């Protein structure tokens, strides 16, 4: 799964730790999602979407 997490986080000037705190997960989880090593659960994906003010499909996209 491809995602725009790093780009969106960068736009807001947040560190991984800051984003992790806002999402209520560990910094390693944010890192694993950004590097594509882990796909978040649906509840976490909704939380990410709500935090960035975007829909899930505009953040996450299946690999072509």
């Amino acid at each position, binding site marked *: 799964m491809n995602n725009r997490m790093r780009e969106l986080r960068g736009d807001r000037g947040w*560190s991984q730790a800051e984003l992790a705190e806002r999402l209520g997960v*560990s910094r390693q989880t944010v890192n694993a999602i950004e590097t594509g090593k*882990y796909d978040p659960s649906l509840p976490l994906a909704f939380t990410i979407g709500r935090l960035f003010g975007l829909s899930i499909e505009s953040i996450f996209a299946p690999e072509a």
Partner: protein
Amino acid sequence: MTTQPRKPRSAGMQYLIDAGPASLCYFAAVIVSALVTKQMEPGLLRLLVAALPLPAILWMAWAELRRLRKRDELRQRIELEAMTVAFAMSFGLVITLTFLDMNGAIDVPITIAGLLMAVCWGGAQMWVRMRYHYWWSETEKEQEP
């Protein structure tokens, strides 16, 4: 009167609070059981004293499970994958060694099973954490924006 926000506890301190009493109880039960059973005659009472660590083991398992439920989803996934891998590895090894022992190829004491399980669990944790880049250390280099 204003109250100061509580400083978050360190991971080590939180672990001690969550699992410390159960672990202490387990070690105490193992020591007491080992010392007392040596001086007892075979019988039901000796069996009961030998099984003394069992409730403490169940308490430890419950404490670990409660702790895991408080973790974030990636950590839960890592623990689940590591336990699955470790169980398969240790079960396979123990069965293989048992058959080798039964056929007289080698002489393996039963006490090695616990050690094997611990080594397999440690190896599985390392392997799964490497896959997800999820290290124990919080000093890992952070990706700044």
